[in-house]
């Protein structure tokens, strides 16, 4: 039964997530909130693992979430659920690729969809920020505003931000380099 639901949830994700791997994130958070199969913390870790292993990020996320929910059968079913709508849609439009690309209504629809996708990913990012950079529990207990911020984490975020965006020698590097570096910093400074 859980496998059937898992398939359905990921089928929905595959059908509505437009714009690649990160676009599946808001759907994963939605699944976590509604089903309780996994926590926000687990999701953030899954993103890191999906980024640092071979394979498409969306597929990696589905496999990981499926495994966390229902073991090996779960990972297979979640992945199949995610790719089924893609395969059906592509097989349908492959016959009329040019007509699809040039259709003004399709183009107008995607004109609206693209900013929506970015908005949804940004909102999922807010959830990760709350988890990784803020300490909402401590703030709720003390009420002191400075207790809201996790200083060590904010400092690391600032360094990573500069390294991935502005340092010429570093910004082209694969995300795995930064992920591994952050893991080392996390252990060294006991985050």
């Amino acid at each position: 039964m859980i496998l059937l639901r898992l398939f359905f949830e990921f089928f929905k994700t595959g059908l509505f997530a437009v714009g690649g791997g990160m676009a599946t994130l808001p759907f994963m958070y939605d699944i976590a909130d509604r089903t309780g199969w996994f926590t926000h913390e687990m999701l953030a870790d899954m993103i890191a693992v999906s980024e640092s292993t071979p394979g498409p990020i969306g597929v990696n996320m589905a496999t990981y979430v499926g495994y966390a929910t229902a073991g090996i059968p779960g990972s297979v079913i979640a992945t199949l659920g995610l790719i089924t709508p893609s395969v059906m849609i592509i097989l349908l439009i492959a016959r009329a690729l040019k007509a699809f690309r040039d259709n003004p209504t399709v183009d107008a629809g995607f004109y609206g969809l693209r900013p929506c996708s970015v908005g949804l990913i940004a909102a999922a990012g807010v959830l990760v920020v709350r988890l990784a950079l803020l300490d909402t529990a401590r703030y709720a207990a003390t009420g002191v505003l400075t207790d809201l911020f996790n200083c060590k984490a904010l400092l690391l975020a600032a360094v990573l931000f500069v390294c991935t965006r502005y340092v010429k020698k570093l910004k082209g590097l694969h995300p795995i380099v930064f992920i591994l570096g952050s893991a080392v910093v996390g252990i060294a400074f006991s985050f």
Partner: protein
Amino acid sequence: MKKYWELFLAFARVGVMTFGGGYAMIPILEREIIDKHHWATSEELMDYYAVGQCTPGVISVNTATFIGYKYAGVSGGIIATLGVVFPSLVIITVIAGILTSFADVPAVKSAFAGIRVCVCVLIFNAVVKLWKKAVVDKATLAIFLAVFLLSVFLDVSPVVFVVLSAAAGIALTRMGVRGK
């Protein structure tokens, strides 16, 4: 039969070598699909990739389905897709299994607390990259802000936003607001 096996293996190789998804797969696809097997031309590949980006689902899966379909019909499309996801299934299942057994080790916990900080920055960078292609005028900025704020503060399924935004895109284009 040999045709399908070749297709599966070629896309499994693409799956293993695509690290981080998205554009990372283009050079590998070019080598496997165009240079080695001649299953598609460079122009076709770009077309598939462009359509794969703007249709629902994972981009590399969409591209694999296109190429497989062109080379060997519907079953080709399905086999190429299974090929591209196969390595992920194996690798992630193994890693997930290992991590679940070590999740309570303090050092592993600290490592992942550090990694989560990095994930924030990676998501931010992804948003900036996608933003450049998506938010192109006032109307798309309004859609972005509306979706972002509503999904932060309300508990609404992303499906609702996706359907409404597509409809808004069509309506706004018809009204001639686009590009202003």
